[in-house]
Structure formats: structure tokens, C-alpha cells
């Protein structure tokens, strides 16, 4: 290549880095360099603007409303913390917050346990793994407007499980949780677990598949039993998967709106009220937009309190680690 006419083709990469081109090229290159330097930010900017408006601006809007006397339409006056005081003096809101805790704890614990259990089972070279996996995953595909009615029947004592079991002969069997204010929230947990286990299972399965076999073999050679291997080696190695699952399931839990409305409509009474349904009914049904906004701000602050530390730890690691 050396000595031939025409454009000079660099012999190796370092040459480009080392040599400059002529002045003209330098000017052209510096504009191009400028553009190239800014291009990433330019490309990101539509998303940033969209998220800035769609998320942060709207959060400010909601905050402003929560400090106002808005009832049916937004009013931008200022009444201090009045709506927050009202919010926390409303028994239904207290119920909603309690429900959120109970629901989230149970939902997370059961879904993770069940998801992990199924993932481990499926990982044991099971036949028809594909079919089984589809069976566990499909509930995620359905919206609760679709399945809410089916679940309502299944959980209703005179139409569903209790009736079937009674008809089969066990007269004493009672499963009327959905009718009892103290137990109705567990029905919501059941339906939510049903919907989300497949997703947790998929993530755990992916994590399990990513674990190197040699580690297991080494432990087996050392004489460790299967259970021991699982508990001490495999489960700890699934830490990233656990984190992802917890974040995503928490997201689902806070959002659980369709589910509650379809299944119990926050009943019986207001026994299964959740912050999301409370916010909706305050704003759109009871003409208490200020209170609704205050409840939304409370939800946001809770979420922020959990997510921001997680994000910080994740992204900090990344900066150093990667």
C-alpha cells in the first residue's frame, strides 16, 4: 500500500491518532468533533424533555394541587398543609396505607419464594419445560379487567372454590375470605401472586441458567448435599436477580389499581382500599382533588425513599465497577 497514488490509507490505527490532517480538515473535523461530542446528548434530549415534562413537571403540578383547595377542578391557590391534615384524618387512608404494607410484604415474600421454587424445579431437566413455563407465565399477559371477574367467582363462597369443595363432600370447608373485611386483603394477595409469579420465575430461571456448572461440581466433590449447595452457594449468587425481582414486584404492588378495583372494588366496606384506589376515588369520585393529590405525593415519597437509595447504590457500583 505504501507509495501508491490516491488517498493515503493509514498503515495502522495509531497513525490516525498521531497525525493530524491539513488545516481545512482540522476545521471540518473540529465541527464534526463538536457535533460528535454533543450528539449523544442531542439524541438523549427528546427523552429527557419528555420525561422532564411527563414525570417531573407533573409531579410539581401534583404537589401544587396538594397545597391547594382544589375540589373538582384544579385551583392553584395555597392552603398550606390542610389537605395533608385532612388526608391523615381520613380512616380510609389509614386503612389503605396499612393494606399497602401488608399486601406488599406478603406479595413480595410469597411471589419470590414461589417463583424461586418453581425456577429451581424447572431447572432440574424437566420434560415439557416449555409448556410448563408458558403456563406459569401467561397470567402476566392478562389484564385484570380480563381476569377480575373470573377470580371474583372463584373466591366467592357460594359460586367458587368453597361451593365446589362442599359439593364434593367436605361440607365443613369454608373459604369465604373475600367476604370478611379482615381477610379480604389476602384474596387480593392470592390474585396478585397468581399474576406475577411467572415473571419472578423467569428472572430466577435466567439467573440460575447463568450460574457456572463448575462451581456446583466443585461443591459436590467436596461432599456438600443438594440442599446445602442451593442455600449456601446458588441462592447468594442470585443476588442481582433478587434485586431486579424486588424492584419490579414493588413497582407492581404500588401500581395495583386494576387488580383491586376488579376484584373487590376496595370492599367489603373499604377493607381492601389501597393508596392507588384511594387517590383515584378522591380525585374523580369524591371531588376532593386536593386530598387526592396529597395522597399521590405520599405515594411518591414512599417510592422515592425506597428507589433512590437502590438506584444510588446500583449506579455508584457501576461507575467504579464497569
Amino acid at each position, binding site marked *: 500500500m505504501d507509495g501508491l497514488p490516491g488517498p493515503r490509507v493509514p498503515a495502522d490505527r495509531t497513525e490516525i491518532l498521531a497525525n493530524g490532517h491539513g488545516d481545512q480538515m482540522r476545521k471540518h473535523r473540529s465541527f464534526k468533533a463538536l457535533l460528535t461530542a454533543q450528539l449523544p446528548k442531542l*439524541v438523549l434530549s427528546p427523552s429527557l424533555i419528555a420525561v422532564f415534562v411527563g414525570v417531573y*413537571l407533573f*409531579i410539581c403540578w401534583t404537589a401544587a394541587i396538594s397545597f391547594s383547595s382544589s375540589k373538582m377542578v384544579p385551583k392553584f391557590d395555597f392552603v398550606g398543609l390542610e389537605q395533608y391534615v385532612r388526608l391523615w384524618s381520613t380512616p380510609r387512608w389509614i386503612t389503605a396505607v396499612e393494606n399497602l404494607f401488608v399486601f406488599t410484604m406478603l406479595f413480595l415474600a410469597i411471589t419470590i419464594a414461589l417463583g424461586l421454587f418453581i425456577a429451581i424445579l424447572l431447572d432440574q431437566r*424437566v420434560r415439557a419445560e416449555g409448556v410448563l413455563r408458558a*403456563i406459569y407465565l401467561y397470567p402476566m399477559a*392478562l389484564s385484570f379487567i380480563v381476569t377480575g371477574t373470573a377470580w371474583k*367467582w372463584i373466591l366467592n363462597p357460594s359460586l367458587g372454590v368453597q361451593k365446589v369443595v362442599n359439593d364434593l363432600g367436605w361440607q365443613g370447608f369454608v373459604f369465604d375470605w373475600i367476604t370478611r373485611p379482615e381477610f379480604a386483603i389476602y384474596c387480593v394477595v392470592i390474585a396478585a401472586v397468581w399474576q406475577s409469579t411467572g415473571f419472578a420465575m423467569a428472572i430466577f430461571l435466567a439467573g440460575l441458567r447463568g450460574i457456572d456448572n463448575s462451581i456446583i461440581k466443585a461443591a459436590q466433590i467436596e461432599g456438600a448435599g443438594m440442599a446445602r449447595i442451593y442455600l449456601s452457594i446458588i441462592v447468594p449468587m442470585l443476588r442481582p436477580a433478587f434485586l431486579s425481582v424486588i424492584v419490579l414486584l414493588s413497582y407492581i404492588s404500588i401500581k395495583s389499581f386494576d387488580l383491586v378495583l376488579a376484584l373487590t372494588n376496595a370492599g367489603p366496606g373499604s377493607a381492601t382500599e389501597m393508596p392507588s384506589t384511594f387517590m383515584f376515588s378522591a380525585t374523580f369520585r369524591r371531588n376532593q382533588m386536593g386530598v387526592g*393529590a396529597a395522597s399521590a405525593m405520599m405515594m411518591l415519597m414512599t417510592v422515592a425513599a425506597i428507589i433512590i437509595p437502590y438506584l444510588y447504590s446500583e449506579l455508584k457500583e457501576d461507575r467504579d465497577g464497569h
Partner: protein
Amino acid sequence: MATDRQPGRRSHMIGRVFIYGSLLGLAAFYLMPLWVMVATSLKSLDEIYAGSFIGVPEKVTFEAWVKAWGTACIGTKCDGLKPYFVNSLVMVIPAVVLSSGIGAINGYVLTKWRFKGANVVFGLLLFGCFLPFQAVLLPMAQILGWLGLAGTIPGLVLVHTVYGIAFTTLFFRNYFVTIPDELTKAAQIDGAGFFRIFFSIMLPAALPIIVVSCIWQFTQIWNDFLFGVSFTAGDSSPVTVALNNIVNVTMGRKQYNVDMASAMIAAIPTLVVYVVAGRYFVRGLTAGAVKG
């Protein structure tokens, strides 16, 4: 990661019985609501009112399905679900493509074109995942009004795209982090530009996560009701709004079989996506979405 087994035959058998038994038992639990829905949709209305909801249909009939698709009344329009189904398709496909595409480019920028504060930007984008959507209905409606998109399908596409960016960026960014920087740096030195690298290197390698992102977005957007009912009107409503109208009939004899058939019709696209593409979903997650 399937492990080899050394133990004796008997405990091996018990082990297998336990495994299959548990899996099948759980499968029954997961299939139960689907069974209820399908069985009810195949019964005639008299049979439902006469008997239980859970039993096997005495006589299988598809009249409920036909009615749900073509003649069920949603308000005063009695054209069934078909027009709304089409609306949903027209709305979901662009929204999925747009949000996934933007997420891909965002992930690419955030991992391969590091600039100061990239992680902060990512964190800011990510927070959008956790927003309670009821809170943004009214201000979003105002914005759509100003843009002249109120009550239209493009408006709904815009809303879903905006709120999908957070998740798709998460997926792609976490995936692209695992693609070695050397690849892109080498391409840069060879003279490839920003977009060239994206289209020739990043996208082809990203097939698994593209599938994950599209599946997730498709499901979320197709099943959405809140935005659909708030930002569209009448003819431009998606299928979830129509379904809600059908199942919320409060007067007269509730047509349970049509309700269930409608619910099934509305669920079919997402079901198909999950059943067909489910294995790619797991594969995609294995390939890197899961790591941290």
C-alpha cells in the same frame, strides 16, 4: 445449571415425583382462572344461570364468541369488539416500536458515550417507572389538548411512548453494559460514526433484549385501561375500554358468556405473544437484562 445426580434410585424417584407433582399442582392453580373463562365463554346463557360457573359445558357453543366479536353492544354501537380491537393494534404497534427504539438509543448513549452525569441522567429517567399514573391524567390531558392530540390515537401513542421510555431504557442500558467497550471503540477508530455503530453493531447484538422490551411494552400498553379511557373518545377507544363497557353491564340479564368471550378476545394477542415468544423472553433475560 442443571445438576448431575449421584444419589440412589429410590430418593431419585421420590425427588422426581416431588418435582413433577409440585409443578403439576401449581400448574392447575395457574390454569384455573383460564379454565373458568374459557368454559364460561363456551356455554349458553341458560346453562350458566342454571348451574355453576366452574363446571364443564354441557353443550359447547361459540355463539358468545361470535357475538362478542361482531355484534355486542358497546353503548349504542353494536359492532362488537372488532373496531376497538383494530384501534388497539393501530395504537400499540407504533407505541411499542417507538418506545423500544428510543430506549435502545438511550441505552446505547448511556453506556457507550459516557459523559459527565450520565448515571444521574439514567437515574432521572428511571424514576419515571414508579410514577402513579392516576396523578398525571389531568395535566397530561391539558398538554394533549395544547398539542391538538386530545381524543386521538396518535395522542395515546405519544403518552404510552413517553411513559415507556423509562422501562425500555432500563432494559437496553443494562444489556448494553455487558457489550464490551472495545467493540465500539474499535469501530470508532475505523471511522464509523455514532449511528453507524448503533445500527451495525449494537442492534444486531441486542436481539434478545429487543424481544424482551417489545414483549413487555406490548403487554403493558395493550392491557392499559387508564390512559385509554382518559385520552380517547368514542370511535378511537382501545379494546380495553370497550371490554370494560361490555362487562360492566348493570341492568338486565348479565351475559356472562359474552363477557368471558370478550375478555378472551381482548387477551388473545398478549397470550399469543407470551406463549410464542415466551422462550425468547427467558433467553433475553438470561442474556443480560438480569445482571444488576
